[in-house]
């Protein structure tokens, strides 16, 4: 009976996320256009400038497009994770957050459901991107598309957790621009998504270390290795650990009094 209740609540949260996702076709398109722009336009320009040597998990020389594909998958997950933060803030401002808070199901379970829903939606977009990338000549091993799935789920959960944690900290929708500037861009550019870290080290030692401490770097490496049917244990440990930390922080930080303060404060 209780299990059924939890299951129905989970299904409800997932369905709502998908309904909203289907409503927002432009969100799906922009989620695909952004990485495709990198893959097709930027990669064409950078290809000549950035030679990628043989580095694990690759067994041979690869094109720049092939190198950045895992990073671009993670870029989709990153933007979706932050989008979830935006949607939580939106729900709070519009009042629909109260529907979630009024549920007799534990709030921690509702947040976990929300995280999984975000992850599922992100995966749809990642595989759509990989399908288009395949047509553009980026062809990881077919089996890699399956072995990458657990890695992608874990990374989606990590970035969703960061998004939910941030949503508890963002007071107003307008503040979301700050997330773009101070979270998304630094996380993405200070990682191994666009260039191998040894290249970064050649340019700047301290930037290299910043990238090393960026959990997004390890998320990208986890996906990169998984796409080539290999397991990067260090990346797995760091990604898993960071996910647990941020998921816990998200649950702890989720304070309903802060989320609904705007309305009753007048009373």
């Amino acid at each position, binding site marked *: 009976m209780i299990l059924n209740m939890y299951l129905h609540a989970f*299904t409800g949260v997932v369905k709502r996320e998908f309904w909203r996702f289907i409503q927002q076709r432009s969100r799906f398109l922009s989620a695909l256009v952004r990485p495709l722009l990198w893959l097709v336009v930027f990669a064409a320009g950078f290809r000549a400038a950035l030679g990628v040597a043989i580095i694990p998990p690759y067994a041979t020389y690869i094109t720049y497009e092939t190198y950045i594909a895992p990073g671009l998958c993670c870029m989709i997950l990153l933007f979706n994770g932050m989008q979830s933060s935006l949607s939580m803030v939106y729900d709070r401002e519009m009042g*629909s957050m109260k529907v979630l808070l009024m549920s007799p199901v534990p709030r921690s379970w509702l947040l976990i459901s929300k995280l999984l829903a975000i992850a599922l939606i992100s995966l749809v977009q990642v595989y759509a991107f990989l399908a288009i990338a395949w047509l553009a000549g980026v062809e990881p091993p077919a089996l890699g598309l399956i072995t990458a799935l657990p890695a992608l789920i874990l990374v989606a959960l990590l970035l969703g957790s960061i998004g939910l944690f941030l949503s508890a900290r963002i007071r107003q929708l307008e503040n979301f621009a700050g997330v773009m500037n101070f979270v998304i861009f630094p996380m993405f550019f200070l990682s191994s998504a666009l260039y191998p870290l040894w290249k970064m080290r050649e340019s700047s030692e301290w930037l290299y270390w910043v990238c090393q401490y960026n959990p997004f770097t390890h998320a990208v490496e986890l996906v990169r290795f998984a796409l080539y049917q290999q397991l990067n244990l260090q990346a797995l440990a760091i990604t898993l650990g960071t996910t647990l930390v941020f998921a816990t922080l998200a649950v702890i930080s989720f304070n309903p009094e802060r989320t*609904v303060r705007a309305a009753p404060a007048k*009373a």
Partner: protein
Amino acid sequence: MTIALQIDSVSHQYGQRTALDNVNIGLVEGQFNALLGPNGAGKSTLFALLTRLYRVQQGEIRLGDDSINRNPRALLARLGVVFQQSTLDLDLTVMQNLEYHGALHGLSTREIRRRAAAELEWLGLADRTKDKVRSLNGGHRRRVEIARALLHRPDILLLDEASAGLDVASRQAINKAVRQLCEERGLTVLWATHLLEEISLDDPVVILHRGRVLAQGIGRDVCQQSDETSLDALFDRLTSAKEVTA
């Protein structure tokens, strides 16, 4: 007269400001209980406490054996709520909004659809299930919120200024529908408002002002005890007197 929900010695503060001061209210079972108070009286704060959006700082709220302090989730399962600010997702359809709410209360999709069809039929919205909420007028949106609040078959329905911002006809229609719930289904209702024309002298009323309960009882009795002929006069006297002394 049986008390369905008891609010005992509840106080609430926002920092230094007292929003509710030792509030004691008993909701009469199966009745249309009116919570009267001008803007800023503390009605919304009380709703936030009843719905566990805010933690109870002092006092207790009980629904039968369930206490919001000890077993908040059991209490939430027995409450249906319509908030002052709309909580519908405008981009989803009427049915999707109801499905989401029902699922959060542990109902299966089939059961939700069955119940939703019946509630929407009763509220005259049977033909709007596939419409996006954004396309509905204010009165219809309120009806959807009432249908949604009834979906999990609550014992108590709380409505915070449910008729605010609606035209007279819609206000009357919603008030009538909610009264019908008390008469036909025996539902206990708490109707918070500052519009006295929505209240009858036979209703149990609570007058709340500046976080304090100034009067409580059946409207007619409360008026008699205060030597007033109408609730309007009593309400004006109580709230304006406090304004002067405050």
